[in-house]
């Protein structure tokens, strides 16, 4: 169980609904481990600042997270969390392993800025 303060996505259907109903989405798929927790923390921190983006997490070991683990964009990933960025339901960016606040913000700004 992921005991973060983020919205938890528990099924593949909920994942599909979430990315199709929201224009800009960031989902962190991980465990409660040392590489994942800092990313959840950053997302919780950014929820207020990026009101145009919806944030959520998904448990890496749940069979339902195949919707993230099996996409071609993560084929070379060998470190959790898998962090996925969706625009209008389409995957636009994915990162592997721990990320800093600066790295996350630069992706959010590049992919989800109002001008895009």
């Amino acid at each position, binding site marked *: 169980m992921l005991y973060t303060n983020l919205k938890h996505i528990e099924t593949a259907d909920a994942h599909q609904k979430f990315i199709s109903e929201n224009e800009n989405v960031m989902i962190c798929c991980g465990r409660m481990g*040392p590489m*994942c*927790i800092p990313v959840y923390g950053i997302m919780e921190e950014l929820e207020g600042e990026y009101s145009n983006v919806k944030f959520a997490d998904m448990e890496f070991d749940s069979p339902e997270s195949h919707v993230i683990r099996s996409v071609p964009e993560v084929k070379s990933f*060998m470190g959790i969390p898998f962090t996925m960025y969706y625009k209008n339901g389409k995957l636009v960016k994915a990162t*592997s392993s721990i990320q800093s606040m600066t790295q996350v913000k630069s992706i959010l700004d590049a992919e989800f800025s109002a001008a895009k």
Partner: protein
Amino acid sequence: MLNSALPNNNMETNNHYDAIVIGAGPAGLTAGIYLSRARVRTLILSEGTVGGQMILTHEIANYPGVESISGYQLSTIMRNQAKKFGCDIKSNILVETLNLHGDVKEVILADGTRYSTDAVILSPGGRSRTLGVEGEDQLKGKGISYCATCDGDFFTDKEIIVVGGGNSALEEAVSLTKYASKVTIVHQFDHFQAFEFAIEEARNHPKINFMMESTISAFHGIEKLEGVEIMDLKSGKSQNHPIDGVFIFIGYVPNTEFLESSIELNKWKEIVVDADMQTSIKGVFAAGDSIVKRYRQVTTAVADGTIAALAASKYIHELHQNKKLQHTL
């Protein structure tokens, strides 16, 4: 509230704190709890997530008074305690400039926000040491890892390297044999620093072999890690080795780079403090994993934070008394 010092320059009064704590691990949060409860107006600034290294601990079973708790939960409780007493906390910020000398100290963030304060407690903690060689940043998460329990299962039936010679390296190398077909430990010295039982367990494991007096000088790969360059430190010769994964366990380094030009550090870049956690600068205290000490535990960090907060409270009180006295003369 002890806030009676005049703000520096044209700084807004609400950006003046009696004390600013830099770092929000167990030491910084404890300092925040003690200071705020003593009605010292306190701000905690954290460059990372609140909780520091503590949040990375799956289970803490030796924190007195609590039978078992996750580091994440314990840090949440500490944060809420500090906030309940009125402590302000700002996380994931970047400290750009510190002016620590004089009675009024200044902290400037990368976004331009300026704070003034009477006392500073430094508790920036530490982080995993990296090799700092070519390709390491780009291939992190794509074959290079710093956490065996997180990423071990990605390397099932693959050949991997573990870098390091301490307890973490040897114990994690053994645990990674659950997944990997072969584990090679690469270590820069001709002997290990780990406890004897950990060395024996690794030496006796059929899947583990060793490359001593060697170091990785470069990582190669585009989409993912494909190989490493290993240098023999005796001969200085390097050779390429194809490999699927590398796990790096070469200890911790204090987060004190931003302090190098301002306060006294020892040769390992740890902050030098006295018994009251006072640093080389008056009114600047330090606590937690970044100070000179032998044992780094949540309990020792909490103790450091307590001492630093009590000493800082006394310093602030005396500073304010002196200012009042000067004002009346």
